[in-house]
């Protein structure tokens, strides 16, 4: 989706409609033809903007789809296929963790597969740049999350963030349909992206308590780790 094209298209359609109305009322048939032509151009731009997907995005979706069976089989072997990911900050790094145990329990985290107390723990380090200061205000976190998910990634049309104590509830509205076509395995792009960005913004570890997909909405509840 390219929102600039959609905005331009809708504006042109509106302009054409006003011009068409004027032409109809004054009986100027040639102007009516021009206005219909303008409406057509606007409609084409709107549809193009709505349908457009960056070629790289398609490549990444295909890449993930191809990689997904491999990741899923590894996670099934580790008995982690039904686990929702959690995050933890340790020193200068953020780690995404797949484990049946509380991620706050681990003293040492090594990237890859770890065995702690006989249980598999899968650890993925996330690059963490300390360029953005950690936010404490909810509206600020929401604005930054919106900037990244809507403005930078074009992942959705809007977000809604609520917090009550240590529980954060996030609604991601109008998620790109193509992301729902790919399997929502534990390491899917939606969970990983949202979790890692939210962790960076909060400066605290999180774990996903609940995650559901309702229509084109992604709804998740995160609990902040102490």
């Amino acid at each position, binding site marked *: 989706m390219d929102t600039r094209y959609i905005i331009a298209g809708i504006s042109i359609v509106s302009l054409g409609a006003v011009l068409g109305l004027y032409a109809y009322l004054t009986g100027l048939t040639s102007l009516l033809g021009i206005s219909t*032509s303008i409406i057509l151009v606007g409609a084409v731009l709107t549809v193009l903007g709505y349908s457009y997907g960056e070629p790289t995005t398609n490549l990444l979706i295909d890449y993930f789809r191809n990689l997904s069976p491999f990741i899923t089989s590894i996670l099934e072997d580790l008995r982690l296929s039904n686990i929702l990911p959690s995050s933890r900050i340790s020193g200068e790094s953020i780690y995404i963790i797949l484990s049946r145990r509380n991620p706050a329990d681990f003293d040492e985290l090594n990237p890859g597969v770890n065995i702690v107390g006989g249980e598999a723990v899968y650890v993925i380090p996330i690059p963490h740049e300390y360029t953005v200061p950690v936010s404490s205000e909810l509206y600020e976190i929401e604005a930054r999350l919106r900037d990244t998910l809507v403005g930078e990634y074009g992942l959705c049309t809007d977000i809604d963030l609520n917090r009550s104590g240590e529980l954060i509830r996030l609604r991601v509205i109008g998620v790109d349909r193509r992301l729902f076509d790919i399997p929502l395995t534990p390491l899917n792009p939606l969970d990983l992206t949202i979790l890692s960005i939210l962790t960076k913004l909060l400066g605290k570890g999180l774990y996903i308590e609940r995650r559901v997909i309702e229509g084109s909405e992604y709804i998740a509840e995160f609990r902040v780790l102490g």
Partner: protein
Amino acid sequence: MRRIDLFTLSFTVAAALSNIILILLGESRPDVYVSITILIYYIFYSIVNPFQERVVKTVNYLNIILFLIFSVIVGYRVYEILYT
């Protein structure tokens, strides 16, 4: 330049030029403007396909709708010539 930008630029410039030419020719039938714009759309869509080889559902619907509009206009004109 992205293909979508190239397509949009070519299509809008060509559509504007065609409208100007039709005005200068004193054309007053609205359907002529519409059909020429649709033709221009198809010409540029085939030359500069903004979606390359990918099949995009919404654009397919747009193509079908535009083709139907064009067919109705042409059909009406043919009917007019034959039966009036």
